[in-house]
């Protein structure tokens, strides 16, 4: 399945958003996820099935002034 993650086109077999986060080895606790310009709360990550062409942004809060 082809998806776009943080601006890059990648191939993924993850069924849902949580799988993808795990596949990429990120710590869910520190992530904010946006799928097709929609912010998805963490409790919904497992329910959210990914489909071909999805555009996903995985973000986190960092130090800034």
């Amino acid at each position, binding site marked *: 399945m082809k998806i776009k993650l943080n601006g890059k086109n990648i191939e993924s077999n993850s069924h849902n958003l949580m799988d993808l986060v795990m596949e990429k080895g990120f710590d869910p*606790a520190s992530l904010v996820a946006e799928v097709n310009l929609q912010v998805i709360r963490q409790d919904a990550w497992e329910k959210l099935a990914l489909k071909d062409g999805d555009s996903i942004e*995985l*973000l*986190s809060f960092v*130090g*800034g*002034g």
Partner: protein
Amino acid sequence: MSEIKEDTLNLGGVKFTSRLLTGTGKFASKKLIAPMLKASGSEMITVALRRVDPTADEGNILNYIPKSVTLLPNTSGARTAEEAVRIAMIAREAGCGKFIKIEVITDMQYLLPDNHETLKATTILAKEGFIILPYMMPDITVTKQLYDAGAAAVMPLGSPIGTNRGLEMKPMIKMIIETSNLPVIVDAGIGRPSQAAEAMEMGADAVLVNTAIATSGDPSMAGRAFAMAVKAGRLACLADMADEKQKAQASSPLTGFLRE
């Protein structure tokens, strides 16, 4: 000095006792942030949002900020009003509350803000119910427009981000303080407590200090120093102090002494 007890900073209906806003950028270790907040008494601190970086596992900055401190997400990285709006939406969805520091920068050399894009973003986000603190080039006309657009304050820069050069824009900031209907928070470039005190003496409602505290040898000590300076400047502003004099005025009697 009782009136001082009542002296609070009101941003979009939320009251703050401390007039020192701080930031989370540039700390050698995120572990230094909490003690700095404790030492400075700062009640509001900025954070940024970025695409997660697989290489660096830095952990969530939010975990290093006590719950009692109000978060002020900024829109750094945005080069247009649209991008700033999108970042603001994500930050709020992510549970950071409704405060937002709008920061739209296209000048990559001095990192000076784009006032017009900032105004556009403010107009949009005000309708979305955000409490908006726009980072801006000191400009009286734009200050009026930001007020009309629904900003909760204006944050004119003292000097370019991270330069520690202080109130280079002092004359313009003075005019903004004199004419603005919004609280004025001097942001960027404040590198010394004396500069923070001077801003407050001029009548600024608050200052935002990040670099000078985060990059000092002892952020907690520096944070405490800035907090005292901000308070000192605020008190001086309220204590109705005398103006500059052209002529000297003796503080001891001038009568010649022991002289016939």
